[in-house]
Structure formats: C-alpha cells, structure tokens
C-alpha cells in the first residue's frame, strides 16, 4: 500500500470515472446476448468481475482506458502507452491479461490473484 501511495500523482484517478461512464454507455447502447459477428452488452457477471479487477488498482495516474465489448459479451479494458496492457473479462471463463511490448512481443496469462492487476499496471507505467 505504501509503495502505491508514493507512486500516486494527483489527478484524482479520472480514469475510474471514465471506466464507469463507458461501461454504462456500453450497457445502454448494445444488445445483450451473443453472436459471431457483432458486439454485445457485457452481462452483469462480466461487469462485476471488471469492477473487481479495477478496484485492486490504486494508482491514479493511469491514462483513460479503451473499453471494448466483444461479441460474446466479454469486455476488454486496454491502456496504450509505449507498452500496451489489456484485461479481458469473459462471461464464461477466467479473466486474462495481454501485454504487448514495444518490440511487438506478446505475453498473455490468466488473472488468478488480486495482486496481478496492480503489478501489471506498474509494468505498463514503468516504460
């Protein structure tokens, strides 16, 4: 916790407000369900897990996330800097992360504990 406090810069974490605004917009705009062609509204279990992941991130100095719905009701939360980081939340599977390095290298994995998201965010912002 102390480490995170030291890393905070002002700004009040406007990215969290943006996250909630965009989430509400997707839920309002898109149809529920699933098909093989078009984006769908994230169902409640996806929204709940996405909020849980976000709740573990204490840093306020994040850029605004890109919020991208999938055709299966999944949700991608993505930050782009020199590095890229995405969290994928699925309606029927464990959440995943995707790291894209500046040289194009890609790494993916499952989010299995509460500390991974903050750690990955630190990786994103370190470069």
């Amino acid at each position, binding site marked *: 916790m102390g480490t995170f406090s030291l890393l905070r810069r002002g700004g009040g974490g406007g990215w969290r407000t*943006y996250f909630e605004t965009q989430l509400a917009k997707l839920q309002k705009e898109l149809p529920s369900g699933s098909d*093989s062609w078009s984006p769908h509204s994230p169902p409640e279990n996806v929204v709940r897990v996405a909020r849980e992941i976000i709740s573990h991130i204490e840093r306020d100095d994040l850029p605004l996330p*890109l919020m*991208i719905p999938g055709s299966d009701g999944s949700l991608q939360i993505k930050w782009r800097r020199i590095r890229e980081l995405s969290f994928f939340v699925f309606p029927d599977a464990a959440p995943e992360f995707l790291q894209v390095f500046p040289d194009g290298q890609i790494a993916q994995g499952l989010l299995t504990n509460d500390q991974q998201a903050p750690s990955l965010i630190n990786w994103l912002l370190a470069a």
Partner: protein
Amino acid sequence: MAGGVGSGVVLDDQRVRPSEKIWRLIFSHWFIADPNIPNSPRMLQEQAFSGDVSGDVSIVRVLPHMTEQFVDSVYSGKFKGCGILELNADDVRKAGLVFEYDHDPEWRQDTHFVLRRVGGTVQQPQLQKKLNSTQKAELVRLACAQPLRREPP
C-alpha cells in the same frame, strides 16, 4: 460440418484457397481512437475477433458474389454500412489459425466460415473453439498493416 477432429482428419478446410481474400465485418466499437489523444486515428482492437460464446468468429470468402452491396443486403440489412476488414487467407493461416466451414444460407454456399485454432498434439490435433488473446493480437497486427477496406461509421 467440414473439417472435424481427430488423427488423419484435415482440420483446415481447403475450400479457402491459398492467397484467397476473406472478409471480417468490423463494428464501430472495435475501431476506436485513443481517448487520451485528441484527433488520434481510429485503430482496430482485439475484440474484433472475440467470437460468440461458443468461440465462433465469422468470416466470409470473397467469392464473385461477395460485394459491399451484398454485405449490406444480408439479414435484411443488419450489416449495412458495417466496416470491412480484408485479410489474406495465407496470412491468417500463418498466424496459426484454420478455417472451419459453417453453412449459413444467407451468405450462400461455401462462403461462411469460422476461425479456429489448432491444439492437441501433433499426433492428435484438435480444433480449439476459442482464439486466445495472442492470436487476436496477431490478427490485429495483420489487420493494421493496411487500411480497412471500408471503415465503420
């Protein structure tokens, strides 16, 4: 359904010929700008290849009947004005994906396929329903090598 699973079965449907063009429809939620950079260009995102709950990511072959006007007309205009990403089938296969036929009369015979990844072992390869995140990112990389054939609104 063509393809199938198991030793000795061709998993990749060869109706999709080498160097053939395929189309994936792109909705505006998948082609977005970075909200942190004013006037930044819109970019394709990995969720464009998310598939449905069973993992089906639809593509269509660019056969002679496949035109933008035809896309706009199927399913009573459901995809009218939708963005169109054109990819080379060879490039998709190089990304480790295969094609499985999924008959959909709306698109006509031998036209509608779904993307699959191959898992299992060399001796017993199996079609895996869902693309993984790395494969989606590889597809985005392929897609970003050229402009969309048609941008979504």
